[in-house]
Structures are given as C-alpha cells and as structure tokens.
C-alpha cells in the first residue's frame, strides 16, 4: 500500500469537515468541523514529511496544532460571550451582514 492513501483519507476528511461547516448552525459544532479540517491538513503534512524523508512537514503540523489551540481558545471565548449576549449559539442568529 502506498502512503498516498493517507492523502486520500485526508482529502475526504477535509471535505466532510467543510460540508459540516456549511451545514451546521451550532457554532460549537461548526468549530469542531473546522478542527476536523485542520487535522486533515495535519495528516497530509505528516504524510508528506514521510514521503520526502524530512521532518519539516511534521514541524509545520506541530505549529498548526499550536495555532489551532490558540484559535480554539479565542473562538470558544467568542462563542461564550455571544451566547451570553443573545442566548443562542446559532451562527444564523448573527446575520447582521445584510444591508
């Protein structure tokens, strides 16, 4: 079996995550889907690093994780404050972009 399959898997997961982002209305779940996409990317990175036989890919993946952590912290904080202000975690309720 060639490691390329990992890439296919990653692609699949990424697509699923993206679809989730688009479908779900609960901000938290949306967030989870984003995490899923990030992880898919990480998987590709790791796989590539294996293929090229150097560790840079892993490094990047590592940074991704860090960033993801930071992002989750802030994001969840936002959700919480949002919920406080409007008693809902639905992304549709924040539809203030309409003219």
């Amino acid at each position, binding site marked *: 079996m060639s490691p390329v399959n990992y890439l296919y898997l990653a692609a699949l997961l990424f697509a699923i995550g993206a679809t989730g982002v688009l479908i779900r209305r609960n901000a938290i779940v949306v967030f989870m889907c984003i995490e899923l996409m990030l992880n898919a990317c990480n998987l590709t990175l790791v796989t590539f690093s294996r293929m090229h036989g150097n560790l840079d890919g892993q490094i990047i993946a590592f940074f991704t994780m860090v960033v993801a952590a930071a992002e989750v912290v802030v994001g969840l904080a936002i959700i919480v404050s949002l919920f406080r202000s409007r008693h809902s975690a639905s*992304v549709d309720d924040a539809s203030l972009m309409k003219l």
Partner: protein
Amino acid sequence: MENLIALLVAAPLLGAAVLLCGGRRLDRGGHWIGTLLAVVSFAVGVLLFTDMLGKDPEHRAMHQALFSWIPVEGFQADVAFQLDQLSMTFVLLITGVGSLIHVYSIGYMEHDERRRRFFGYLNLFLAAMLLLVIADNYLLLYVGWEGVGLASYLLIGFWQHKPSAATAAKKAFLVNRVGDMGLSIAIMLMFTTFGTFAFGPVLESTSETSEGMLTAIGLMLLLAACGKSAQVPLQSWLGDAMEGPTPVSALIHAATMVTAGVYLITRSGAIFNGAPDAQLAVVIVGAVTLLFGAIVGCAKDDIKKALAGSTMSQIGYMILAAGLGPIGYAFAIMHLVTHGFFKAGLFLGAGSVMHGMNDEVDMRKYGGLRKYMPVTFVTFGLGYLAIIGFPGLSGFWSKDKIIEAAFAYDDGIRGWIFGGVALLGAGITAFYMTRVMIMTFFGEKRWQPDAEGNEPHPHESPRSMTIPMIVLAFGSVFAGGLFSLNESFVKWLEPVTQFEHPHPVISVPAITASTVVVLLLGAALAYVMYGRKEVPVTAPRGSLLTRAARRDLLQDDFNHVVLVRGGEHLTRSLVYVDHTMVDGAVNGTAAGFGGLSGRLRKVQNGFARSYAVSMFGGTAILIAATLLMRAV
C-alpha cells in the same frame, strides 16, 4: 489718392462705433456726429470721383489692399478694396442719398429718445453698404452683404417694443439668410473652381471653365440677389420691412440696399455672360417680380406698402435688364440710380405726410393734402412723374431703355414676351402711382382721429426734412436726362460692364411711343377709378385679385402654412424624439442594469453560511480550473 478708399468705410464705421458705445452722454449731439461722418464719406467719394474723371476711361479702376484677412493654406482672403466706375457710381449714390437722409432723419426722429442709436445704425448701414460695393473679392462683399442685412434688421426692428416690428425684422433677416446661403455656396463653388474668389482672377478666367459650372454659380448668385433685392420668390420680407422708420425705408429699402442684388449680378457679368441659362433665369425672375410688385402696389392702401410694391417692381426692371447681358447692364445701373433718387424722394414725401398726419399710413384716411403741405406735394409729384416715366424726367430715360433692351432679348418670341411684360409693367406703374397721388393729395379730406382720438393737423415738415426732399426732386427730374446726354452714363460704365447696342424686335421710336401711350392709359384708368368718384374710407372687399394682392398674392400665407407650421411640427417632433428615443435608449439601459442588480442583491441574504458556500464553491471552481489547465 487710392489710400482714401478705406476712409469711405472707415468714417461711417467710426460714427457707428462712437454712437453705439458712446452711451447717454452723446444723446444730445449724437445725430450731428452721425450726419457729419456720412457727409465726410460723401466728400471723400466726390474727391475720388473727380480724381477718377481725370484719368482715361480704361485705367480708372483704383485698388487698395489693407491686410491679409484669412490666410490659410491654399485659401487667400484679403481685406482689399477696388474702386472702379461701377463701384464709384454706387459710392456716390449711397453716400449722397445717405447724407440727405441723415439730414432728413434729424427732423424726423426728433422726438425719439433713442435717436442716437438710430444714427449709429444708419452709419453702420452706410459702412456695410460701402464695403459691399468697394470690396474686391466676393468674401469681403459677403461681409458687407450680411452687414447691410444686420443694419436693416436693426433698423426695421428699431421700434422693438412693437411686436410687429420685431417680427418683421426677424423675417427680413431670415429671408435674407436664405439668399446669403446662395451667395456662400456660390463663393464655395468659385473656390473649388478657380481656387480664389477675388473679382479679378475669377472674372478673367471664366472662359476656362465649363458652362455648367458657370450656370451653377450664376443661379446661386441669383438666389442671393433675390434675397437681398426682394425678388420672387424671396420678396415677402420687403412689405413688412415698412415697419421701420420711414427714412430707413427710403434709404435701405428703396434707394440702396435692395439694389445690391443688381450690383451683384452686374459685377458678376462675366459669369452670366458665360451662362445663358442663368441669364434667362435672371430675366424671368425680373419679369415676374416686376409684375408681381406692380400688382401688389395697386392693391395696398398703406402708402408705404404701396411704395414698397413699386420698389419691388422697379428692381424687377433692373434685374431684368441685368439679365439681358451687355445690352442691359448699363441701363440697369442707370435705372438703379434714377430710381434711387425718385423712390427715396417719394418715401421721404410719404414720411413727411405721415409726420403731418400723426403717423397715419392708410391712404384712405388722407386726401386733399396738397394745400396743407405744398413742398411735400411738389416734390412728391415730381417723383411721381419721374417714376411713371413721364417723358423728359429721369424715369423715362432709364425705364424706356430697359424696355427697349427687353424687346431685344432675342429676335424671337422671348423678345416679345419680355418686352411686352416690361411695357405692361410701365402701364401698371402709372396706374398705382397715380392712385397713390390722387388718394393722398387730391379729393376731399377723409382724415380720421388716431387711436388717442386727437385730430390730425397736417402741416409742412421742418426745413431739415424738406431740403432733402427738394434735392432729391431735382435729382429725379434731371438725373436721367443728364445721364443720357450722348450716352455719357453708358460710356462711363462701359469699361466695367461692356456695352452693346440693343437691337429690339420693333423700332425704338415705336417702343417709346407705345410706352408713353401705355402709361397715359394707366394714369387715366387710375383717375377714372379714384379721381372721379368718392374713395371709401374703409376698403371695399374688392375683386379676388385685389384681395389676393392685399395679402401679397398669398405668398405669406404659403410661407406660414408650409414653412412656419411645418417647421414647428418638425421641431416639436424632434424634441420629442430626442427626449424619448435618443435619451430614452440610454435611460432604458440604465433601468435594465438597475433591475439586474436588484435581483443580484437577493443573494446577499446576510447568512454567514451562505457566503461560506459561495466561497467554498469558488475555491472548488478555482481548483477545477487549475486542474484543467494542468490537464490541457
């Protein structure tokens, strides 16, 4: 000596500038300035004339070039003057009669608070008219041509507060513009044909071009002449032009400006000589107009309009003569000069009568004035005898010659036709002039109180008015005879216009005799109709012809229906088209885009997720695109 030529124009032009820009402070003395400068111009004219007489006939033409006017590649228009015998004749007529009428106006316009401006306009007219006759190329002539048009516009509409006057002025200018169009097209044709439009080169090289081209140019010039000289079909403005003050009618619409057409045709003789068809057209126009004017003159009760009709008809004579070629040019000019004298005299007389009658113009409300204004009566009477061609007076000499020449058009039927028309015209002239004479000065009083209800108290006009009339009367009595002494006038003009003796289809004495008979018949008829029985104060309905003639033979009605109404409809519809179609098309597209954007706005529903979808879809498409590019 030649450098004085410019002064002819400069003097009155200066007067116009001073008087028009001078402002109120010139109101008191302005008219003297204007008169003085007119006289100066006349003096210069006389000076040049004497100088000219000194030279031998072939080398009398003088030339003065001032500066290059429009220098453009392959196009030379200079401001340069040429004073030959023809121009000289006009210069003397214009400045002479002009000066007299300036003097006359001092009295006539006494009570008008805008007298200063009036004199300014008169000077402007003199300048333009002189420019017209001493220009040495057609373009400069064109300047004078339109200049006199402007002056006549200003003077006809001098009493602008009267809508009728304003309208008449506009009408005159517009009709003239149509003629001017002819002149400018003629100039363009000359430019494309000869590469220049200076008299000299053009008239010398006529032989080198085709007859067709000459005919075209000739017809265009004829159109111009028709406009300026009130010839059919562009004559309609002259009657209305009588709205202007009487001195204006005398100077511009009788003696000088309206004869510019004759000058133009005579000046362009070489072109017409090369284009018989054009000449025929000229003759026909002249013949038609001379009858037309005469008939109109018979029907009018307004004394000035009656005189206007006769002017039209007399100029018809001149045009006819000018169309006859070398046999006619000299006589055309001669009649022009004599006509200048007696017609100006008649108009001044009419003005004097109106002056005494609270500006009443309807002859039916005159009658028996000879006792009250003797000088006017005598001068008017002499003018009358002159115009009907009473043997011995000016009109006789000039008109008789024209009739001879007309009979000599060719030795076929045409000679008979044109000769006959000219002869008939003489008769009608006698008729309507006698009518005017009788209705004005004879019979019993039919005076009516004017609009304000104050009775007219006819009185002789002041000296300043009568003297010019007397001078002109002298002219109208003796000028013709003087010119005809061993054909001095013809000889004088010969170097410019050439001259051939006409050979009429019937013997000259016969023509003369018949002329006299015809005019006596006409006069007698008029006496029977108006002298013997009572003249009703309100005009009788009259015959069909009479009614048509009162309305200028329905020419105005035709213009009104066809040109005015039609034009109004055209412009209205065009305005509509411009607003709906041309503009509407643009606004339509604008509206279309507006609707489209309205649809597109619905996509922006404000839900982050649907924006995300579009982003995502966009990314997908991008990837697809890249993959495709790779694949291809």
